[in-house]
């Protein structure tokens, strides 16, 4: 019973000469080619033997018995096939005649493959442009790319785009290489059966390794998010969360929590905090809080005074994107309001402060260090009280 050994194939399948010399070097080490997979080659472990390997190209996946027989009679044994490539071997001491003695004739065997690879490359490139265009448009749909990226889903999109791009590049390279090989053959230059394979082998295995890691990691992201994200009812007592509390803004002991309007999974969504994670912003909170002051009315007498507050806060891994995130947050939540109504002001304890006030709606956008905070408050408290609270709470995650 012989032992089988698997090895990562040295390079791209269309590098015929490099594969031939690789197989020969492996045989010299006692590894005899058995089968070729997409990424791995399977060898039988046996005695060290000096072998010659030749790869024949045919667009037909199956090679005829006539061809196998004809080659056999000349001392070449059929080994295996992969895609359009058929491998034959012959012991060196047999001194079998070369399979192809006429490069120009051999170029005809590449013609169909050349055509196929060319149309393949065109299809892949068009599909790639289409998909990347689609992703791009989704990503920029509401003009808030940084917000989408911080949310986490864009990272996989980018990786998918890189993956597609690489695939398209490979298809193009295959097409160009086979065409070049065909030209060389037509001009009478035979395939170099001893082409050095080590350089491409190293490059190829490095890229394969990196790709596995990157794609593997990106596949983990949604699971990490699933495990890490959670939503709970916000406790009425003060917490150590980096959020602005309604009670601290209203400063009215008469205020009580509003009756839950929407409860799901035991969470009062009007008074909740949600934690989320993404590679760019490993700490993210969104909280909502709703209160009511019994007996007090909104000024327009539309009903009982029910102030509300929402905090969105992000701790960023890359503080440099904070300003872009603020711009996107404004864009995302400004609705029909004009960008000019959002006023940038100076604050000694903040890197950036933008405020927006429209009747009882008060919005504060703040940056400090790694932290980005967006607070939207409906009520009669002064906006400066909101700002004070933002300054106090943003310190919890600014470093």
């Amino acid at each position, binding site marked *: 019973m012989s032992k089988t050994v698997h090895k990562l194939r040295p390079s791209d399948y269309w590098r015929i000469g490099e594969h031939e010399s690789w197989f020969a070097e492996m045989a010299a080490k006692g590894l005899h080619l058995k089968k070729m997979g997409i990424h791995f080659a399977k060898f039988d472990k046996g005695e060290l033997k000096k072998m010659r390997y030749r790869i024949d190209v045919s667009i037909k996946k199956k090679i005829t018995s006539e061809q196998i027989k*004809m*080659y056999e009679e000349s001392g070449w044994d059929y080994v295996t096939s992969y895609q359009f490539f058929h491998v034959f071997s012959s012991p060196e001491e047999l001194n079998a005649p*070369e*399979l*192809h003695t*006429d490069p*120009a*004739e*051999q170029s005809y*065997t590449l013609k169909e493959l050349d055509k196929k690879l060319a149309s393949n490359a065109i299809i892949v490139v068009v599909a790639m442009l289409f998909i990347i265009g689609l992703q791009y448009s989704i990503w920029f749909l509401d003009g808030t790319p940084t917000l989408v990226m911080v949310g986490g889903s864009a990272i996989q999109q980018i990786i998918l785009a890189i993956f597609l791009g690489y695939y398209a590049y490979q298809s193009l390279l295959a097409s160009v290489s086979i065409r070049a090989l065909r030209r060389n053959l037509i001009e009478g230059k035979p395939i170099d059966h001893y082409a050095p394979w080590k350089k491409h082998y190293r490059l190829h295995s490095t890229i394969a390794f990196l790709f596995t890691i990157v794609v593997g990691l990106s596949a983990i992201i949604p699971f990490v998010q699933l495990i890490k994200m959670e939503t709970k009812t916000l406790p009425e007592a003060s917490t150590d969360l980096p959020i602005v509390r309604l009670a601290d803004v209203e400063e009215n002991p008469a205020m009580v929590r509003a009756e839950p309007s929407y409860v799901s999974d035991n969470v009062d969504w009007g008074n909740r905090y949600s934690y989320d994670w993404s590679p760019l912003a490993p700490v993210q909170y969104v909280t909502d809080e709703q209160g009511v002051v019994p007996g007090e009315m909104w000024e327009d007498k539309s009903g009982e005074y029910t102030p509300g507050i929402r905090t969105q806060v992000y701790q960023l891994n890359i503080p440099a994107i904070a300003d872009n995130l603020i711009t996107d947050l404004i864009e995302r939540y400004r609705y029909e309001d004009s960008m000019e109504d959002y006023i940038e002001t100076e604050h000694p304890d903040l890197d950036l402060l933008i405020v927006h006030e429209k009747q009882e709606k008060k919005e504060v956008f703040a940056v400090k260090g790694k932290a980005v905070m967006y607070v939207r408050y409906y009520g009669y408290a002064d906006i400066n009280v909101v700002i004070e609270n933002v300054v106090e709470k943003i310190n919890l995650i600014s470093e």
Partner: protein
Amino acid sequence: MAYNGGPMTEAMYYVLLALMRPNHGYQLMHAITEVSNDRLKMGPGTLYGVLSRMQKDGLILLAEDDGRRKTYQITPKGEHALRIEYGRLKALIEDSSILREVDEDE
């Protein structure tokens, strides 16, 4: 590529020449070596490629297939093409008389 009457490759020419007598794969390789006076040793890959291409183009046909051996022979179309190519090559040699004159001058 379908043969369009242009110059043949050396491999095509000799295979057609050898197939003036019906023959099969392995024998054919020897026959080619023979008719080329040992000058041309054709590899099995080249031979197989030429055979399948010329069969598709109707220059040769499968005379006999007993399952083990396939015997090929030239078709009238193939012989016609071979003779045209022969005429072309002969003209090439005749046109090269310049070289002979140069040789004689030396």
